[in-house]
């Protein structure tokens, strides 16, 4: 009986919590479908009282562009995540091996680079004038490929894998790469899923590299495309100051922001359920286990 009561209360509380978590999404979706004037007068609404799909119309005014932006983002995210995972895990594995003589020196070297940076202009010059990566997909993938923080997380996870596994594989005659690919990688799925999600999110949400290095419309990732759209609307209004130009249409900026959020976050939400079960485990790995 007590157990029954506990379950009822527990489930009820959790359901309420879950619904509360959904509310912001509801607000965003319904606001994206509300008439602009209504938003300005009464703020965002949980239900679209004054229904209007104007914001989506503007968003998809040039459907080929937005589809193209989606494809760029998907491509960059896929390539960047896979390549990034491969490089991060290899680096971390090498650093986690106790018989690697200079591992501390290397670790320090990696870490040290995170403390300083050259600043924006030198970085820009390096990518544009020396590496000649302006307007190439490389400029979108390379800068975020290897993150020292992820290497450290990965390394601390790999350190928890018993040395004995590596030793026994060695005795059986496996080479270093084979040990890494066939033993270590399968064992570190939780960490890979965690880091993979981090990387995928970072690539999915990245617009800054695109801002700096991409001026070709065909290479614009989704986030930058949306950012540009919104920025141009705000900027246009501000910049028309004194130009005597008459802005001929009212632009639904508030609703548009929400519509963009829906379009930009929708797909990446699907990544969560896939890796969720590793996620909790992955982050707590490295803590002392009983």
């Amino acid at each position, binding site marked *: 009986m007590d157990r029954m009561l506990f379950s009822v209360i527990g489930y009820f509380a959790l359901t309420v919590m879950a619904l509360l978590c959904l509310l912001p999404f509801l607000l965003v979706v319904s606001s994206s479908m509300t008439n602009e004037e209504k938003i*300005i*007068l009464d703020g965002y609404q949980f239900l679209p009282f004054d229904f209007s799909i104007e914001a989506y119309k503007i968003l998809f005014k040039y459907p080929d562009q937005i589809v193209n932006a989606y494809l760029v983002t998907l491509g960059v995210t896929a390539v960047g995540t896979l390549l990034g995972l491969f490089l991060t895990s290899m680096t971390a594995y090498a650093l986690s091996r106790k018989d690697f003589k200079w591992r501390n020196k290397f670790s320090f070297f990696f870490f040290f680079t995170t403390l300083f940076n050259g600043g*924006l202009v030198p970085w820009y010059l390096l990518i544009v*004038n020396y590496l000649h990566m302006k307007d190439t997909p490389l400029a979108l993938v390379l800068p975020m490929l290897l993150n020292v923080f992820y290497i450290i997380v990965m390394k601390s996870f790999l350190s928890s894998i018993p040395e004995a596994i590596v030793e026994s594989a060695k005795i059986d005659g496996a080479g270093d790469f084979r040990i890494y690919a066939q033993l270590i990688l399968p064992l570190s799925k939780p960490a890979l899923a965690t880091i993979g999600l981090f990387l995928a999110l970072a690539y999915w949400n990245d617009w800054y590299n695109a801002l700096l290095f991409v001026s070709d419309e065909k290479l614009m990732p989704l986030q930058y495309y949306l950012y540009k759209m919104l920025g*141009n609307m705000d900027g*246009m209004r501000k910049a028309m100051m004194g130009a*005597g130009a008459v802005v001929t249409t009212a632009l639904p900026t508030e609703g548009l922001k929400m519509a963009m959020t829906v379009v930009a976050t929708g797909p990446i939400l699907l990544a969560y359920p896939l890796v969720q079960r590793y996620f909790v485990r992955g982050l707590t790995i490295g803590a002392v286990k009983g």
Partner: protein
Amino acid sequence: MLKKSRMGMLALALTSAMIVGACGNNGNNGNTGNTGNAAEPSAANEPAANSAATSETTTAGGIDISKEVHLKMVFVGPKPVDYDSVFGEINKKLKEKINATVEGEFLDWSDWAQKYPLKLAASEDFDLIYSANWAGYNDQALKGGFLELTEDLLSKYAPETWAKMPEVSWGQAKVNGKLYMVPQNRGESVEKLILYREDLRKKYNLPEINSPETYATYLKAIAENEKGVVPFTPETGDWKYHNLDRVLLKQQQEWNMFDLDMPFAYKLTDTAGKVFNVYETPEFKDLLVYYKDLADHNVWSKNVLNSKNDHQADFKTGKTASITHNNGTLGSLMALMRQENSPFEVKLADINQGKKKSVAISTQNGTSIHATSKNIERSLMFIDLMQNDKEMHDLMMYGINGVHYTPVGDTKYKATDKNPNFTGFSNWNFNSPLNLDNEAFPQEASDLVKGWEANVYHYPLETFVFDNSKVKSEIANLGNVMLRYAIPLEYGLVKDIDKGLAELNEQLKAAGLENVQAELQAQIDAFLASQK
């Protein structure tokens, strides 16, 4: 085991270092040394005369243009939808006239502020660039990104511009006595006006709005009677003064206030150009009393300082009953509201009638030539055409006749429904007397400006530009003090005005007010001495 916990500690330390370190990772795009050092342009930049066989083309000025060149120009704003068709047309004509073609590169409004300095720092390949005081013209000129335009160059390659541009405009565009920009050739008035709801004024039988007092009467009446309407909403942005100060302080007192960026001003009529601290004047204190009174009557919302509302949108929907902005913007808003058959009757008010009005400084919009450009002559010829050749000017400013606009008489145009496909980017640097007015623009707004233009006051310090390089950090400090102590005071959030003022001035002194003032005065004195 010990080893492991040490690792954990290290990981932890690293993690926190990462997080702390990450904060300093972005948004710091200032104070970088310049890379491209401006090569002094030699006048002997003659294109090699290897054109024996080709047609010997020279322009009226006797300049050899036999070699075809391709110019690149950087604009601010998004690439217009009909870029290809309009620029195709421009290039056809440009080829005939000066044997050149032009290609535009566009920096979107969303990120031009980051990209613009980078383009110059990286010395990328372009010939012309839109420049403006609000786009860091002074800084970029001092860093050597722009080519110095000498009298020889201008009079030879841009003769019409050289002849038609008012002397004042050239003077204002000089940085340390050197010119790096061909400014727009059109005096814009930047004085701010007030836009209000005439229907509400009539509803409550209020007196006509033509002075600060009548304006206050209107505001208070709205606050009292129109529930749900905010009487006044300021423009958002990092204002260091009250949003109404341009109207109630600068115009009212006939001061020049240095773009409202510093706590200094001088009187327009003062030939000695004596600089004083705005916050120590009795006029400012009177204004504080005026503001406090308005605030006590709930004329602006309580959270006015952290509101992010777009005041124009608020006005359009009837959420607020008055806003302030410049004539062009308010006129556009009125035109838009009339187009949408807005139920409100709106009107412009000038509450400083008969006061001296000054024109915008010419560097509001301009064109600069990249220091490393190889096509200096042709670039100047291009600017000359764009400002003074009607055909070219109209193409660049309004698009294709019959597609994007139709001319109405000689001075106006009517925007077609395709008009938005060629607008929204910075072509204003080619503003000139050839400009057409949009016929949808409210007549009363145009009339007001015409009245002002007759009243424009020219004064000795009009072309003075303050070089703040020596006192940059103090100015930043002063700005912070103004934001922190002056703004709450001006919006009536400080109970005791005298105490607030005393504290503000104390803080300003601590932030280095006297240093900046001395520097400013010294530069003004030197400037005036050189004028004599």
